[in-house]
């Protein structure tokens, strides 16, 4: 399979500026050199990429073209007039998208951006995501083979009140295919924006999404990034988000993962200026044989920054969750204030979680804490509910939802929070507990 990507690279010679071609060549060379990681690589210890490496994925075929705007309904949040860029099987779908020129916010496909915003792309694209680390070889593959994707730039001082939705869909034609979407988010100094990045499958297709998202958050800017992994049940998903934060900037990330047979989600941010903050929250809900691995990395490179992290997992069936939260505090990053929590609710005897905090602190005046809990449904609460007439099954669902609700409540945009609460409930109760 490793050679398949190299052959594909040689065959397709993607278009683009010379600087990008040079980076693509370095990326494919790096992949040839290091190959796929094995579980001997510490960052892949609990997740073997072998099922992806051994599968014979072909470049994803174009959509069958039958999707209509009406089909998007269940995947949308809030108001239907939110700007959205829709991609089907890795290709931009203008007829499903709605991009209006809102003051100060540019949202376009990567292909268009390469033509219309060459200097923006040269400055940011491929500059945030690491292709050298052997653990990040999927980023190298994406870099070599990326063809389409989304670019969002929020202008200096602009407060983009409306969330921007980037929706990556796969339809039946995606079977046995792979795509490498690339996303670039740029929040210019003093700006504020919310971007939803959603990956969803149509049904039971087996395919591989290998996506990379890069973000640059300028001085005093705030970027909310809500990431939804709702791939088809047989799909594979590797997603890397690499963020660079300037002084006094804020990155607020939420990762919601319920889909795919095997998924690996990397969220990395670097606090490269004083006074910034990163909030990384997430919720994963797995069942059957699903495997989902979150690797977060927060680099505190400068003083006076904070980071907050709450990840929750609900694991049923024989599913396997992995959470690894790294926090690096550089020697100069004094007064760092970090807090990390990972809580898991196991609903079955066969479900498994591997959770590992990893704090590497080289400054002496810092406050960093971490904690992990693994538990089952609280029997006392269960009895309390049953003693009020609520049947066992309903009580269990409600307590499971309640476990998730605590982290869902952190989502600041009402329509998004309500939307994710609804998705969670569909899985556990069927009715909203707030009504």
């Amino acid at each position, binding site marked *: 399979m490793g050679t398949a990507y190299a052959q594909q690279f040689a065959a397709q010679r993607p278009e683009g500026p010379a600087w990008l071609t040079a980076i693509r060549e370095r990326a494919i060379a790096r992949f040839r050199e290091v190959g796929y990681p094995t579980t001997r690589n510490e960052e892949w210890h609990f997740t073997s990429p072998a099922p992806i490496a051994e599968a014979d994925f072909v470049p994803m075929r174009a959509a069958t073209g039958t999707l209509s705007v009406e089909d998007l309904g269940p995947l949308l949040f809030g108001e239907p007039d939110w700007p959205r860029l829709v991609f089907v099987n890795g290709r931009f779908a203008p007829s499903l998208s709605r991009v209006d020129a809102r003051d100060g916010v540019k949202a376009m496909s990567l292909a268009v951006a390469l033509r219309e915003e060459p200097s923006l792309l040269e400055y940011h694209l491929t500059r945030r995501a690491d292709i050298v680390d052997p653990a990040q070889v999927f980023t190298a593959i994406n870099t070599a083979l990326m063809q389409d994707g989304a670019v969002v730039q929020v202008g200096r001082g602009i407060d983009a009140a409306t969330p921007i939705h980037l929706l990556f869909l796969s339809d039946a034609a995606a079977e046995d295919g792979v795509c490498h979407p690339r996303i670039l988010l740029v929040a210019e100094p003093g700006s504020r924006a919310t971007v939803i990045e959603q990956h969803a499958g149509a049904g039971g297709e087996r395919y591989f999404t290998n996506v990379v998202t890069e973000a640059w958050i300028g001085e005093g800017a705030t970027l909310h990034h809500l990431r939804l992994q709702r791939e088809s049940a047989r799909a594979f998903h590797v997603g890397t988000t690499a963020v660079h934060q300037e002084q006094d900037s804020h990155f607020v990330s939420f990762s919601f993962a319920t889909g795919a047979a095997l998924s690996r989600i990397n969220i990395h941010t670097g606090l490269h200026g004083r006074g910034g903050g990163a909030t990384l929250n997430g919720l994963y809900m797995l069942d059957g044989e699903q495997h989902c691995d979150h690797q977060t990395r927060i680099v505190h490179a400068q003083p006076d920054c904070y980071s907050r992290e709450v990840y929750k997992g609900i694991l049923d069936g024989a599913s396997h969750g992995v959470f690894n939260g790294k926090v690096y505090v550089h020697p100069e990053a004094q007064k760092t204030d970090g807090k990390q929590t990972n809580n898991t609710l196991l609903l079955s005897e066969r479900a498994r979680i591997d959770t590992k905090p990893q704090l590497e602190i080289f400054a002496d005046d810092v406050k960093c804490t971490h904690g992990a809990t693994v538990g089952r449904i609280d029997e006392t609460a269960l009895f309390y509910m049953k003693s009020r007439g609520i049947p*066992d099954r309903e009580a269990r669902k409600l*307590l499971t939802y309640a476990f998730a609700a605590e982290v869902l409540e952190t989502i600041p945009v009402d329509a998004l929070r309500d939307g994710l609460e609804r998705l969670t409930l569909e899985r556990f109760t069927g009715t909203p507990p707030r009504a």
Partner: protein
Amino acid sequence: MIHISELHASVGEKEILKGISLEIAAGEIHAIMGPNGSGKSTLAQVLAGHPGYEVTAGTVTYNGQDLLAMDPEERAQAGVFLAFQYPVEIPGVSNAYFLRSAYNEIRKARGEAEADPLEFLDIVSERLKLVDLDEAMLNRSVNAGFSGGEKKRNEILQLAVLDPRFAILDETDSGLDIDALRIVADGVNRLRRKDNAFLVVTHYQRLLNYIVPDRVHVLVDGRIARSGGKELALELEERGYDWVTAEPVAGV
């Protein structure tokens, strides 16, 4: 209404209830008093169906049904209610949703129509006044961050909304100041009817000044050591529990 006969119950190897017999008729309030560790709370929990206790002998008949054969939720749907000594906090589930789910499950079991959120709000608003709780509490998580007094008043609110036939109050008075105690007692007194019954478990006589029982039973070491009218509670207040233990009496 409820007939308890020679009830024995254990936790693990330890027998806690050692043969309790008790009969409560509709319209009556009975009080169970006794020293710490005498089995008062165990009796309350066993009647509600707590899975941590094993009934080793005896029967409990509730309106002609075998109560011990029923799941906790079936007991509740049939009109049994336990006001917990330590109400449970459930972060993430609002009081409104919790209470409406319970209310509708009980309505369903009775073959009545379920209430929608607006209808339910009318029902619950009325009852909130009874226990002096603010409507804002409905949007808060069940008991989460509630003071001790608020938790106990929330138990009585649930009692008032769910309208059980047989309610057990497990040390509802513990930890309450005199004002909260009055609110709780007033609530119970107003809910008292000809067709329902209460079993009030308490360590202190104080609550019985406000909720006047028809019968008082003193539990000592898993058995009813003495039963009498409301004056028995006063006598206990005066003479302490040692007096009962020292002077065992046959019969109930």
